[in-house]
């Protein structure tokens, strides 16, 4: 199994090794594993020849608002589905889960047409606004969590004169920090790596998120593998670090609902 893990990591080793080589070393036969003199400058160059930091900033500007707003909306809905009684509850919840089955391929074209009619193309809005309404996965996940909490919690708070809103905001939501953190980590990973939507909706280079900036390397510096590998390494490190720090949450999240990272 250790061998297996090493095999899994070899491509990354190759990426790092190439990132530290000179162009001559990159095209040498047989390939070198260890660069003669590590070219740390490649990393600096990778962030200056393309608007790397602008890409990072754009990614954050796109991801964070949708993530925060979406988590809030999902938590609120999950609370209602888990703790409140209302007609049609199961039916509505089932409907929501069905939305998970809608393939993105089907909505891709009409959404483009919709955002075009709204004149939202080439802005962050098509990437942020739909996320603000919450997602079925998150609702499902938080509902499962809220259902495990004892019923006395709500009743006690209701007796203290709290409204449903206050019960949610003051009692239940603070207890849900672990599942919310899980969802936040997942949301962030997904947002950082998102590619197809920005590819379709954005055309101004100054609005490109990191992944589109990374894709630029391929066309601008297609011969310069060390530069490309340096860029790929830099773009991957933050998510890898986040994953390693937060892997307890990630493992739990996957185990419960199989959310894709």
């Amino acid at each position, binding site marked *: 199994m250790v061998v297996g893990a090493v095999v899994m990591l070899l491509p990354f080793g190759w990426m790092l090794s190439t990132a530290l080589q000179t162009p001559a070393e990159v095209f040498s036969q047989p390939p070198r594993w260890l660069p003669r003199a590590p070219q740390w400058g490649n990393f600096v160059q990778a962030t200056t020849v393309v608007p790397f930091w602008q890409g990072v900033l754009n990614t954050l500007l796109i991801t964070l608002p949708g993530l925060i707003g979406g988590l809030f909306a999902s938590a609120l809905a999950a609370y209602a589905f888990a703790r409140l009684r209302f007609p049609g509850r199961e039916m509505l919840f089932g409907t929501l*889960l069905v939305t998970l089955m809608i393939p993105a391929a089907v909505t891709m074209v009409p959404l483009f047409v919709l955002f075009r*009619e*709204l004149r939202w193309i*080439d802005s962050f809005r098509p990437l942020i606004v739909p996320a603000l309404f919450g997602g079925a996965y998150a609702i499902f996940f938080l509902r499962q969590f809220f259902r495990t909490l004892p019923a006395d919690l709500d009743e006690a708070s209701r007796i203290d004169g709290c409204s449903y809103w206050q019960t949610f905001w003051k009692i239940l939501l603070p207890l849900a920090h672990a599942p919310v953190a899980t969802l936040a980590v997942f949301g962030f990973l997904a947002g950082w790596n998102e590619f197809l939507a920005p590819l379709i909706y954005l055309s101004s280079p100054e609005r490109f998120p990191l992944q589109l900036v990374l894709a630029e390397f391929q066309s*601008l510096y297609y011969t310069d593998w060390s530069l490309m590998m340096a860029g790929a390494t830099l773009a991957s490190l933050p998510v890898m670090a986040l994953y390693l720090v937060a892997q307890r949450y990630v493992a739990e999240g996957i185990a*419960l609902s199989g959310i894709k990272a």
Partner: protein
Amino acid sequence: MPDLFGVVVHVSQRSQWWYPGEMSSERRMVAGFLAAVTAVSLLLLGLFAAWGRAGRALAMTDDRRPLLFTGWGGIIERQVFERLIAEFERLHPEIRVDYRPTPRDYPTKLKLMFAGGTPPDVFYLPDTEFPGFAINGRILNLQPWIDRSVVIREREFWPSSLRRYRFDDRVFGRGPLYALPKDIGPTAMFVNLDLLRAVNPGLAARIQKREVAPTLTWPEAEQLWKELTRDLNGDGRTDQWGTHGITLEAAVWSHGGKFLSDDGRCFIMLQDALAIEAAEWLVGLQTRLKVAPMERQRQSIPVDTLFLTGRLATFVGGRWMVPQFRRAAFAWDVLPVPVSPRTRRLAGWSGSVGLAISSHCRHPGDAWKLIEFLSGPQGQAAQARTGFQIPNQRWLSHTEVFLQPGQRPEHAEVFIDAAGYQDAGPPTRTPDDEWWDLLHRSLSRAYRGEATAREAVLRVAPDVQAALDRAWRAIDRERRP
């Protein structure tokens, strides 16, 4: 704790999706909720639309009139254009140019900008994309401005650079101009003189001494390429190649063959023995003579790197390679693309990018001023000085701005001559380039040695004709009164 699908299975089995029976208060409440969802959705849709419009209005806070200008290009080209635009804005203080070069996959991005309702005002229009944009009414007719201009004079342009941007509502290559060339990109054969001297010192000396660069015929060139193709380290694999980059157009046209009927509607290559013969010759450079690298080797290192590292002795490419090759550590020059021994006709493909104005442009007058500036002498001189481009105007090509004595290539006039005799690619005469794409996809089997060129063309000919028919049908339908 059950997982997601467990819950789905569970919920779907347990819940009654809808109760039969009278309108109960429960049903009324659910119906009320659904009505609220619909109402809020519609309300939000209205707000979103208003937001979209407001967003656009806010963007215009500057009192100068904005022009969105988009194109592509490497770092050098971008820097030149940033300087040129600063100069333009100094001359026209009432106009603000937002220059947005697109780095990747430009034709798709450009179509997306139009599709998304955010078209640029002025933009690079590759000649292969020109027909589609002209037919669909996406670009303005520039002829009225050109006729009035004192800066732009048609007769000073290379005729082939203009022909590809003409459209008379039915046929391409005739009628008013819908774009002006930003450049013209004829091709020539770059030769590594150091490698050449080692195998054929006589020819190397002839190239360097002669006033006029010699033109090789195919058999002469083949001989040379064979000598230049070598296995340097003795591992049984070729490490130094004779040539790469001769286009299908160059081979077929020089041999006297044709791809299309004169009206651009029929694919006649298969019936044209000369065209097929030329294609077989070109394919044979890889499969029979093995003097050209196969795709496999080319994908490993891009051909420009192969040439720069001395592993490719000759390379047919455009002027845009020049700044990069000036970094080479060896001596090199350019020759005309080798010609067919049958006709000895100089021929080849020249690319071009046009500058066009979107029909959505709100200040077409300003947009024209920008094109006039970039296509005119001042803009062209600045672009030519970088070495990557041949001026669109003939007289400028013969000045030092382009010829750049003292810098490689010594025989820079090879490019100028080629601008005169080379022609635009066949897809510039058809409504779209799908057929051309299909043809090349099929020919790649021949390049890999899996079929002869004739077999590859034969196999794809019906699809090519169908694609052409489809493309022309689309216009004919639009044009019918």
